[in-house]
């Protein structure tokens, strides 16, 4: 992945401003490539439309492949920081909780610190967002079967660290059992890497939908050899 110019007989065609940039970026954020598909359709630009289809197939292909092969269990945001904060408070120290320069992080930041994969998975679009829903609304049954937030407790058990820890340890035990299955092993990690890559690549797709293809600034070469 180099920024070096390509030796081709003709330079890439000049690209004008893309239509509906903000809406297209939003569409590509939700569904990878949808913004480019709409832009291609509106501007009758077949390349842009086909690029959108490529983004959609490849990014969601990677995401769903990794997600499905992990038994639909690697996209989630846990509630662990709350437990660690309470344990640290009871012990009068900052040890287990994720912290920044000795100051404990707030629960959401701490949980992202404990599950950084979700930061990138979030950008894969709509199929990664039920995890956030379940994180913030544990009582809701809308997405209760998918992307369960380990350590989440219902209102009835609110404030119970025992219930939190039990829920998340059960989830972790099941993950460990799956990793010991024949045919899984280290592939477990490869599968979440697919989902993380999908999200990371979609950030470029969102940029492309908003501003068009990434153009690096042209370097002016002086006769003396310097830039």
């Amino acid at each position, binding site marked *: *992945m180099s920024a070096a110019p390509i030796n*081709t007989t003709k330079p890439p*065609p000049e690209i004008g401003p893309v239509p509906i940039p903000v809406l297209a970026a939003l569409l590509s954020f939700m569904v990878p490539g949808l913004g480019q598909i709409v832009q291609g359709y509106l501007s009758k630009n077949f*390349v*842009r439309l086909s690029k959108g289809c*490529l*983004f959609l197939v490849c990014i969601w292909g990677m995401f769903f492949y990794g997600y499905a092969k992990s038994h639909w269990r690697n996209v989630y945001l846990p509630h662990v920081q709350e437990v660690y904060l309470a344990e640290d408070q009871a012990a009068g120290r900052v040890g287990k909780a994720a912290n920044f320069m000795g100051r404990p992080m707030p629960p959401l930041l701490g949980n992202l610190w404990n599950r950084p994969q979700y930061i990138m998975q979030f950008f894969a679009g709509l199929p990664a967002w039920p995890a956030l829903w379940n994180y913030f609304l544990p009582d809701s049954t809308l997405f209760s079967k998918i992307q369960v937030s380990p350590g989440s407790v219902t209102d009835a058990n609110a404030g119970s660290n025992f219930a939190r820890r039990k829920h998340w340890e059960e989830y972790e035990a099941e993950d460990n059992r799956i990793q*010991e299955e024949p045919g899984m092993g280290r*592939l477990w990690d490869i599968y979440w890497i697919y989902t993380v890559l999908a999200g990371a690549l979609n950030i470029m797709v969102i940029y492309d939908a908003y501003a068009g293809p990434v153009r690096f600034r042209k370097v002016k070469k002086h006769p003396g050899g310097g830039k």
Partner: protein
Amino acid sequence: MFADAAIPGPTSLAVFIHFPIMIILVNLLFSAARYDDWRHILLHAGRGMIYIITFLGGVFLFLFVGLQIVVPWLFG
């Protein structure tokens, strides 16, 4: 070299099968985000793949030669 009895499931060799897939997809999508012209997209993706495969292949060769030849020769 690849077998790892401590970790259940396939050996780490099975993991490497996924690398070419990732390299192709990442390069293709990265290039597609840089150009609005299929010819340039494919050329840029191909060049990126060659760079990455050359680099990773070099690292692999270095480690392979080191582990299979140099280490046994020194400590064998």
